[in-house]
């Protein structure tokens, strides 16, 4: 916080116009560089209701979102599976064009579609940000993915999600984890359907920023290899690079600017 400490004029001294003027210039700078935090607490509150801001019915909170609908629809085949829940059409050819098929074993990538899950902004001031990603995850049955030349149909894809801020993960967003002791399980969600929201809060400095919802599939495991549920699958007849999807999705960003200099 800037402070104004006038030196004053000494008795008997010669008054220099420059020195005298500096006293006023410093006073002007203090006033010009004041933020709201230098005002007395509750200065702008109504005396009878602290929720009323006497300054203006405005706020520094900026709310932004991007979203994309992606229908879970039937493939239209009669018989069992003729509905979006039982056997959703998760093919590139005839499923919803807005389904995002998570690339297999290729690391995290932006969840794209007609509306990508990405928000960019530039701020002049430090900000506290809250980011939430609400989404529908869905994948084909494990029997729809075949291990190469094994005759077995037990492949278990895992879905990983994170919210990336300026290239780094916002701590606490997920779900994803790194493999421990070489185990393949537990790196992501194995659920066939999931409808959830992951969120995180962090501080950002002034500048240009990007927040992105990303998805990945780590290496899948299968039971075809020696009967171990943790067995690594290295080759597929039907790889899980199609049919492990993100459906409806919304990325929400709330920005809380920390202050602004005010000038006269």
């Amino acid at each position, binding site marked *: 916080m800037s402070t104004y400490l006038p030196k004053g004029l000494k008795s008997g001294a010669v008054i220099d116009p420059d020195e005298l003027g500096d006293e*006023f210039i410093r006073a002007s700078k203090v006033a010009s560089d004041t933020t709201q935090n230098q005002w007395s607490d509750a200065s702008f509150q109504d005396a009878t209701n602290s929720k009323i801001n006497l300054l203006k019915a*405005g706020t520094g909170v900026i709310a932004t979102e991007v979203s994309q609908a992606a229908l879970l629809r039937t493939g239209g085949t009669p018989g069992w599976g003729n509905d979006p829940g039982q056997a959703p059409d998760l093919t590139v050819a005839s499923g919803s064009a807005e389904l995002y098929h998570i690339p297999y074993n290729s690391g995290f990538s932006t969840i794209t579609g007609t509306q990508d899950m990405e928000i960019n902004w530039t701020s002049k001031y430090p900000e506290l940000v809250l980011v939430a990603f609400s989404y529908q995850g869905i994948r084909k049955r494990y029997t729809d993915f075949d291990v190469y030349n094994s005759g077995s149909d037990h492949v278990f894809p895992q879905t990983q999600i994170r919210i990336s801020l300026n290239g780094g993960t916002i701590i606490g967003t997920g779900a994803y984890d790194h493999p421990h002791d070489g185990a393949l399980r537990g790196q992501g969600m194995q659920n066939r359907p999931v409808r959830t929201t992951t969120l995180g809060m962090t501080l950002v400095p002034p500048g240009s920023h990007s927040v992105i919802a990303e998805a990945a599939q780590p290496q899948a495991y299968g039971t075809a290899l020696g009967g171990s549920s943790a067995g690594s699958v290295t080759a597929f007849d039907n790889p899980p690079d199609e049919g492990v999807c993100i459906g409806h999705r919304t990325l929400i960003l709330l920005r809380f600017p920390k202050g602004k200099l005010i000038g006269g």
Partner: protein
Amino acid sequence: MAVSKPTSGSTITPTSVTDMYDSVKDVVNAVPVSSVGESAFGPHVLPSCIPNLVGTTTSGAVNSAVATADAVTITKASHNVMLLESEGDVVTSTPWATVVEITKSGGYVLPPCKVLVMFDARISNIVKAHTADDQIGQAWFSVYYTANYGASDVTEWETRNMGMVFTAPSISSDSTLLASSTIEEPVSCWFLIDKSALTENWTLVNIKAVGAVGTGAQALSRRPTSVTFTSANLSFIALHKDS
């Protein structure tokens, strides 16, 4: 703003001192309160992030919850053979059962603003008694709201705010009984309502989270019989429109 000070070597006069005082006074008196209100953020400004309901001192933030003891079980009567999500399925032709709702007489009158809606719940079980095949049961939900912009109420429904989870059958060894219908699946849907472009106050009449039993194309006798939502929570927070 520059301070008008006397030049070095000049004679200081009462006027030159007064000019400097006036320069500083102009700076202080010209602090724009609007820029503080619009862009500042501090403990004393934070409450104003949430606008009051128009004509009241009540903050535009409301929550409605369903505790476990009041779990909502949706039966087959409201089931739907859903081949595609649509507003007609959810809102119009075949009403679903309400899981949790935020509503009050006259609605919530708000200024132009953005509203963050948060629905979080737990789906405890999908009951399916018949196990003659491996059909599965589905639990669907949809979150939507009704608004009034000065005329009649308008239902605002969006596909993106739907969700679905299902259970694979867990058949006991004799293949005639389900070992369990419990799934205990948490679900969530958050989204923003953007009414910042409005020029007049508007009314948020209600927000609803509705659910249904999804059956697929199974024979009627084999369809799941109920879905139970527990611990559902529906909230909204109005945020003043962006500066």
